[in-house]
């Protein structure tokens, strides 16, 4: 009976008013890296291409390190309601930015390796980079992204489960720590490729 009434009335969204604003901000920042990559390729500027790759890769790595080493400790020290308040703001703000940084860093890396004649799929170092990238992408699309969307969906429910939101946020932050380890490994591979 109560369920039928709920369906008839429709569930009420509990999404905070700032969510859409933060999502728009995230998209406005997230669209910049691929657009600058287009500019680098159209202008045939290897310097700009290198810059796009380094800044997107570096920012992606820095974000993972920050989330894994700093935010994880902050979130652990907070009560569940405070974690939920952070999740409400952190999820929409990073929603487009992180996948855009990751995708642009990887795509520009392919162009750069080709430009420098290092994109040899039989090279152990290129294969190692490919494996690490696959792990990072699988984690990103397989865990980070679905968790972020699930947080949104939970927030849009009439009765959001704060425990679930907190759990998903902590899971993403912990995953960022493991991503940070792979980021450190891939930077080692990149440093080798740049010198040899």
């Amino acid at each position: 009976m109560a369920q039928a009434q709920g369906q008839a009335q429709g569930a009420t969204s509990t999404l905070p008013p700032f969510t859409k604003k933060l999502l728009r901000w995230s998209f406005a920042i997230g669209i910049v890296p691929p657009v600058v990559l287009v500019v680098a390729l159209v202008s045939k500027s290897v310097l700009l291409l290198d810059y796009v790759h380094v800044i997107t890769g570096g920012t992606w790595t820095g974000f993972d390190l920050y989330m894994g080493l700093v935010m994880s400790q902050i979130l652990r020290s907070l009560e569940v309601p405070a974690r939920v308040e952070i999740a409400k703001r952190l999820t929409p703000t990073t929603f487009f930015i992180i996948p855009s940084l990751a995708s642009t860093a990887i795509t520009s890396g392919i162009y750069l390796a080709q430009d420098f004649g290092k994109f040899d799929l039989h090279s152990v170092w290129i294969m190692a980079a490919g494996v690490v990238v696959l792990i990072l992408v699988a984690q990103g699309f397989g865990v980070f992204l679905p968790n972020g969307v699930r947080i949104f969906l939970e927030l849009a429910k009439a009765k959001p489960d704060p425990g679930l939101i907190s759990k998903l946020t902590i899971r993403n932050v912990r995953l960022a720590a493991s991503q940070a380890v792979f980021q450190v490994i891939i930077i080692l591979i990149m440093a080798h490729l740049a010198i040899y």
Partner: protein
Amino acid sequence: MTSLNTDALVAVVAFAGALLLVFGLLYRMAARSVARGELSPEGVMILRWALVGYLAIFAVLAVTSFLS
């Protein structure tokens, strides 16, 4: 002279394919929640806009494979 960069296009299509797969599963889950009256339609609407935003980013990246 520009030509198609297959390696880059394969990478972008793989990203977009993985994204569509994940979004498809989440959309189905969200649509069921709306049908049960647990989730407001706003949740599904945000999911649609999020998909449009991601597709825009990947479309720009896909364009780059024709520019190198």
